[in-house]
């Protein structure tokens, strides 16, 4: 067991720096929380109004029966791929640069899965009947129809939410123990319960590492399956524009695309707010940027192959949708989307100097996410607006209720994150220590 004291001497400083964000926030923090809470209550109010007065408050109408809520569901499930992809895939490939990023991303995963699930409830006309989805012997003598992709969705999202909570929690155990020893007040008993009596003995470390090693590949497989199934919600129908075999991989890559963008935003904000420049370094933005280039290219490739096939096939039902996107009703959002998620990232992220500019990375992350939100809407609405019988063609824009609920949910996501940062060490402390040690020893 070769050990120098290099790396070990950094530990007090690491503890201090990484526990610092847990201390109570200042006036700005409280103000932010209040502001977000206000937006959340507006959203909640809109939802109550919708429940009271009926689903007719949305602009849903035949033939457009899925729109803003489902698009948001898809978008938020997509964002949740940030954590699982970054920490799952990078942990599997033993990429050292993952260390300060994983926790930031994993928190996003949990929160966005919660938000995504909320959107399913908004979309239900009679939200209080949601438990019809659960298969249990009941007096209705009705069983959920598992042949419906929506039931696959319910199963997959349940698995995903459970697995990613576990995946966030596992590496947190030693950090909770550290927080238990160093942070007093009302949080201490919670930390004590959550740290499961962690002492740091070698058997415990071994148990923890084994569990992480086993669960990591599983979570990556779950992640891929979840967004594939969300894609199948569309692909399994015969709607032109949805019924394509590439839809599942296209959804997965798109999800990772927006997830990475969200991580760029999170990295920038956490680093700035808590002055973590020496942990989240420019090198990390650089690596993240390269990953984003790879994702942009893959997504563009899938999109191109799909649209090319449609265009060359010239099937009238499909062409109607393509035309409406390229030059018709939906041309403006379509070209905005293409600029935001393909063109801008490719122009900027391929320049090495740009990837070393945190603010720029954040802005590109923002562009990608706005673009991907539009993209989700464009996957849903144009095909539904152009059913095969053209007398039925229609148009759609979200109503104020839908917009308020969407804004409220977005604020809820940010609020949950802002609150979580005060409770969970935002960078995995022990993994960071381990990184310092291995980094110094092996080179």
């Amino acid at each position, binding site marked *: 067991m070769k050990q120098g004291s290099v790396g070990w001497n950094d*530990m007090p400083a690491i*503890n201090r720096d990484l526990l610092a964000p847990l201390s109570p926030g200042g006036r700005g923090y409280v103000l932010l929380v209040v502001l977000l809470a206000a937006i959340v209550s507006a959203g909640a109010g809109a939802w109550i109004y919708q429940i009271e007065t009926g689903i007719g408050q949305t602009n849903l109408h035949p033939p457009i029966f899925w729109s803003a809520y489902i698009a948001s569901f898809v978008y938020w499930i997509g964002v949740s791929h940030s954590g699982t992809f970054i920490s799952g895939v990078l942990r599997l490939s033993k990429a050292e640069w993952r260390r300060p990023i994983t926790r930031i991303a994993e928190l996003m995963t949990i929160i966005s899965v919660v938000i995504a699930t909320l959107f399913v409830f908004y979309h239900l006309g009679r939200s209080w009947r949601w438990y019809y989805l659960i298969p249990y012997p009941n007096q209705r003598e009705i*069983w959920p129809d598992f042949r419906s992709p929506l039931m696959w969705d319910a199963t997959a999202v349940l698995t995903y939410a459970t697995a990613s909570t576990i995946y966030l929690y596992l590496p947190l155990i030693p950090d909770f123990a550290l927080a238990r020893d*160093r942070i007093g007040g009302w949080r201490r008993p919670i930390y004590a319960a959550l740290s499961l009596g962690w*002492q740091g*003995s070698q*058997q415990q470390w071994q148990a923890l590492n084994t569990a992480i090693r086993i669960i990591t590949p599983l979570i990556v497989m779950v992640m891929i399956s979840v967004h594939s199934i969300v894609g199948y919600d569309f692909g399994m129908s015969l709607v032109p524009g949805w019924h394509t075999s590439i839809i599942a991989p296209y959804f997965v890559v798109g999800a990772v695309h927006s997830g990475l963008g969200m991580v760029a935003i999170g990295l920038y904000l956490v680093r700035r707010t808590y002055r973590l420049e020496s942990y989240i370094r420019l090198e990390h933005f650089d690596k993240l940027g390269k990953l984003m280039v790879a994702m942009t290219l893959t997504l563009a490739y899938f999109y191109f192959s799909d649209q090319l096939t449609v265009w060359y096939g010239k099937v009238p039902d499909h062409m109607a949708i393509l035309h409406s996107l390229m030059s018709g009703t939906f041309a403006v959002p379509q070209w905005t989307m293409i600029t935001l998620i393909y063109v801008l990232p490719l122009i900027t992220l391929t320049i090495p100097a740009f990837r070393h500019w945190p603010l720029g990375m954040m802005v590109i992350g923002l562009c990608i996410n706005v673009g991907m939100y539009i993209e989700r809407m464009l996957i849903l609405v144009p095909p539904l607006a152009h059913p095969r019988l053209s007398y039925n063609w229609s148009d759609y824009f979200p109503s104020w209720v839908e917009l308020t609920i969407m804004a409220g949910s977005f604020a809820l996501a940010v609020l949950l994150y802002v609150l979580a940062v005060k409770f969970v060490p935002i960078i995995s402390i022990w993994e960071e220590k381990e990184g310092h040690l291995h980094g110094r020893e092996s080179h």
Partner: protein
Amino acid sequence: MVENHTRVGLLALFPPEADMDTSRRRLEEAGIRQEQITLLSPIPLAAPNTEAHPPFWPYGITIAAGLVGIGIGLFFSAGTAALYPLVTGGKPIVAAPVVGIISYETMMLMAVVVTFVTMILRIRRARDLTVEREARIDDGRLALSVRDIHHDQEATVRKIMEQAGALDIRSVSADLPLLEGQPSAHVVGMLALCCLAMAGCSQDMQEQQSYQSQEAPRLHSPSGSIPRDSRTVISRETLAADRMSDRAKELFRINCLPCHGESGEGTGPVAPYLKQLPANLRAPRVRALSSTEIYDIITQGKDMMPSFLGELSADERMVLASFVESMKPYSLPSQR
């Protein structure tokens, strides 16, 4: 536990460069068993993935749990189709790809959850209850705990620790209380059981007809009475006018037709799939019912027929009751 006071534990803090392997060996030579020694560290000391032969059993548990998960998936997506048969368009109701997808997800769910629970149990088991957590290790120290040693061994152990460069040695009594703040597993288990039991019951129980202890059994409302939780007063005249109105027909078409059929004869499109046939609303038995009784049935539901309490307002239910009553071939103005 009589010999507790003759046995003690020692906890020593070391700088990171201390050679723990040698001290361990020397302790063993002094007659201390492996399982009495615990090494605490702020990070895992064995670098990940360097173990020559990681034990197989954790993987075995995960795989077994995955197999159980597949079983659960099979049960839910295929098995229940046999319990609750639905015949649709002559097509097989159990679709293989669907069974595959559902089983995949339940497999993953079980594998992850069981691995996690096993790990938690291992971490809890590996806790050394005689040692409080040594908080200083997180500042880059190692700690060695030797527990349950005889008084006469104490001096030797102390000496070995000092020679290895211990910064601080303290003795700990062997019977420290458990760490506080641990939720009892029993409580969690009981709660889970309660949730399970509740999930099996109808959520609509509260909405069903019932009477409290000491309360006289409630009878049907006297015929001709008007429901009181309606906000508008409905007179018999307006009802008679409403009876054949478009509103009544529309309400019937949306809420009742699927089961009872267009003409009310119990031959709606979903009727063949129900375990119990919907009543023929023109049969003599239904014709004998007053509109108030029909109102009650719509409100409370009956056997397979769901309650419409949450779905329709009192007015709407009243209009429907009146409409059903008027279905009678000989439409007399209520019995009286």
